[in-house]
């Protein structure tokens, strides 16, 4: 039973919530200058409160979510979020605080933000931090802006290139470009790691920075990391660490120790802000003293027992976001860290890594594992063996079939460097029992490739809708209930997203 849109359920005159009546003599419309008054009311739904509730409750039930089942999306760190973090983030004393409130009336929030800054510095080994970026990609952008400002401050203006491995997340090159850099892609070595020879080749006096995540998106730890960062530094570049994979190494090592100058953290991954169907998150950026002068405005400081916002930082790159960042998300991250402490966070990482290795070990019985070495918090398999048995079976069909077993598929077709891959990140919050059930489903699916390949090719069968026609969506854009769009004759290039990478997640 498909749920009709609320526009189809709308009946003129209905309203889902009562609002206060006018208390003054003059109608607001009289304040609107001639010619600017709205002529046709917007066609928002007109429904009763019951209609609205039913609609959204029913819609919600069409979703897979952490609270309904396993979600082994590589690079996304879909862990369980302690409910206590939701609750404390929603205390009225926090939510009702206006961002323009004078500091003295906002000491509670400022203190927590300040403490969170300290915690993150302790955890990563950096010297300074901004909590303002709204997500990981925003953090990357801010980090790259600071790198640019750093080189500019040294009048080192020829540094226009950023080196990024081909296994990197798409936001890395996109962020670099938004800072006016040129991206030099580094092909990974056969072991999936940065190839030192390739790196040396690419480095030059044009090198502004390298962007790396470690463990990388294949789940492998760059064991030559000290050499890499040293080489980059020797060439005059800086090292940016994409913290999306921080869940692998908390309490094991500090990022700054590896030689990085700047990093972001995706608090919505590592520190368990629920992803909310695609956000909000937050992307704190940590830096060493080299970059500290360039932090965005304002910075939270502590003087004489009072927490204050400091806007007076002449070398700052400026403001990067409205007000001070996604404060509620920061509160949740703070609460999460308080739930665990350093020892607990180390346990998080150790268990995440153990879970991943356990799954890898189990799955290799049936699936091709391109990188055999010990993985960190995630790993890659491919559909190679299964495809060999039946040409219509590929990574996407296996993914869809997993849905019938009640599991969210892993990230697929990412990283781009391994064809037909699946990237599996179980996280530490999943029990051995859940992992075993997933292994059993994967075993059965492998069996089905021999006994009943068509069930796989046609999958999914038990989901609210069957295989969704993404090509139709791209060819006949329908992005607004009230508007007819022209069908477009999209070329294969435009459809790229439909077949493979759209299934990709992080």
């Amino acid at each position, binding site marked *: 039973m498909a749920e009709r849109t609320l526009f189809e359920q709308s009946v003129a005159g209905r309203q889902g919530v009562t609002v206060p009546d006018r208390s003054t003599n003059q109608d607001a419309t009289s304040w609107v200058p001639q010619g600017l008054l709205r002529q046709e*009311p917007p066609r928002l739904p007109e429904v009763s409160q019951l209609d609205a509730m039913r609609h959204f409750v029913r819609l*919600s039930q069409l979703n897979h979510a952490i609270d*309904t089942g396993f979600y082994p999306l590589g690079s996304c760190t879909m862990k369980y979020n302690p409910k206590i973090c939701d609750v*404390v983030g929603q205390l009225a004393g926090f939510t009702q605080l206006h961002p323009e409130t004078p500091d003295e009336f906002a000491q509670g929030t400022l203190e927590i933000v300040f403490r969170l800054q300290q915690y993150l510095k302790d955890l990563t080994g950096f010297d300074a931090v901004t909590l303002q970026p*709204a997500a990981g990609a925003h953090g990357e952008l801010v980090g790259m802006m600071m790198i640019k400002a750093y080189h500019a401050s040294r009048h080192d203006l020829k540094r226009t290139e950023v080196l990024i491995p081909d296994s990197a997340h798409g936001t890395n090159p996109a962020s670099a470009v938004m800072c006016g850099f040129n991206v030099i892609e580094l092909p990974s070595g056969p072991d999936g790691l940065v190839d030192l020879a390739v790196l040396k080749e690419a480095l030059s006096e044009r090198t502004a920075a390298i962007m790396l995540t470690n463990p990388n998106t294949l789940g492998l730890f760059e064991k030559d990391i000290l050499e890499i960062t040293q080489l980059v530094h020797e060439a005059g570049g800086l090292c940016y660490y994409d913290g999306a994979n921080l869940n692998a190494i908390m309490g094991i090592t500090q990022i700054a120790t590896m030689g990085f100058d700047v990093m972001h953290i995706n608090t919505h991954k590592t520190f368990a802000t629920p992803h909310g169907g695609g956000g909000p998150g937050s992307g704190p950026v940590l830096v060493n003293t080299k970059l500290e002068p360039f932090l965005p405005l304002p910075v939270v400081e502590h003087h004489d027992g009072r927490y204050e916002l400091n806007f007076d930082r002449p070398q700052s790159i400026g403001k990067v976001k*409205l*007000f001070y960042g996604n404060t509620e998300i920061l509160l949740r991250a703070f609460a999460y860290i308080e739930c665990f402490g350093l020892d607990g966070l180390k346990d998080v990482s150790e268990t995440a890594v153990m879970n991943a290795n356990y799954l890898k070990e189990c799955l290799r019985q049936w699936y091709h594992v391109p990188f055999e070495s010990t993985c960190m918090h995630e790993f890659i398999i491919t559909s190679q063996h299964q495809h060999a048995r039946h040409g219509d079976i590929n990574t996407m069909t296996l993914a869809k079939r997993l849905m019938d077993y009640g599991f969210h598929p892993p990230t697929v077709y990412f990283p781009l460097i391994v064809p037909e891959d699946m990237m599996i990140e179980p996280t530490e919050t999943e029990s051995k029992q859940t992992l075993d059930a997933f292994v059993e489903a994967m075993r059965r699916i492998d069996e089905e490739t021999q006994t009943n390949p068509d069930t796989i090719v046609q999958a999914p069968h038990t989901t609210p809708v069957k295989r969704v026609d993404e090509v139709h969506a791209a060819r006949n854009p329908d992005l607004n209930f009230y508007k007819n769009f022209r069908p477009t004759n999209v070329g294969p290039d435009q459809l790229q997203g439909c077949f493979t990478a759209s299934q990709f997640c992080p």
Partner: protein
Amino acid sequence: MTSFIPHTADERQQMLDRIGVSSVDALFDAVPASLKHPFTLNTLPKNGRSELELQHYLTAMASQNPGAGMLSFMGGGAYARFIPPAVNAIASRSEFYTAYTPYQPEISQGTLQMIYEFQTMMSELTGMDVTNASVYDGATAMSEAAFMAVRATRRKVLYVSKTTNPQYQQVLRTYCHAFGDMALGWFDPDQPLGPQFTHEPNTIAAILVQQPDYYGTIRPLSAYQEAAKATGALLVVAVDPMTLALLDSPRKAGADIVCGDIQQFGNSVNFGGPYGGFLSTTEKLMRQLPGRVVGRTVDKEGTTAYTLTLQTREQHIRREKATSNICTNQSLNVLKATAYLSLLGPQGLHRIASVSAERAHELAKGLLAVPEVSLRSGDAYLYEFAVRLPIPAKTMVHQMAHQYGILAGIDLGKYWPEEDHTLLIAVTELNTPESLERYLSAFRDVIHNRGLSVLPSGMSRDVKMVATGTRGGQ
């Protein structure tokens, strides 16, 4: 083992055995020994707190924010409004808020359909054809709009009204500066535009304005429309979408891109975030939009279904050629906005905007009757306006807060030194008629005393009293 890591010691052992290592440490052999130094902890606690202890602690911290309970007239891009409990009932559905981005449409129809409905509602409000599934906030939305215009026109000059939200301006400056190879020009919207545009007309990518502007002033948009037409630049209008219940759609005034923030639709002020930016545009420009977009399609049996679409704009496909680097956006805020707009409907929204404007004008009338107080905004405004005071706005804010427990507004000297006697005041439906009285009488007192404190020192009783309020989890 904690309540969030389920493994027992036995299970750990079984798993390590299966992996074939003797200890967890062995799994980290790839990490060079030199990196595995012990941590020096300055502040990060070694052990976690129990849930009870954490709740006690954070509740105590929340009570250190007396500002959250004070009567507030602050806006400036963030407005405290009534959030119908049904909004939170919807947004707290586990299936919505613990889901990831809806990349797998077959098991994400809930989020996808919701976003499609959001796109439609925002497009209705703005009058545009298509709206994206959000960017971070109104400020980054304006920057994204600017970049979009630069891409679409292949030109590099942006003219921005000086009365746009100063934070939007600052973020735009930061973004443009980082990208480089762009020029930003500023103009006074109350002066003829022509003479202020010093760059070649055919280099202007966009004209960026805000309606109502930061001072709350509403202006006809026709001059900008004409200028855009004359130069071939795009017209970007930053809006407060709540005002679109009363104001005609920017599309009618020729906008090519409309951007803004959905915070007021069901989201708390939250000391600055998370809110949600949006961009609406024309069908012609839709392939330049940054961020996610949902399309309606069918499944293989022909049933209506929704999916992310036009993904070749996005970073995960196009990488360095993407329209933006955005990935995680503000989906849960979008859900709240969608629920909010669904519950209010066109009439409810009209009433909320109206009641706010009516009360704002009521308050303004009172304030402007006070000697030496004058209107700084233009004559036409809705629920936000600025007044010039005979005392520094900073003093007014300070006295009103300390002596009367009222957050009187924003001292615009914060943003523009020359505006240090200007106070920006916002009124919403949360400001009851009685609270307007309270404001007015306090305001009169402060002016009367020329900003000198009448109470000896420290906070007054008022401040403490209001700090107890729990306005019901908004």
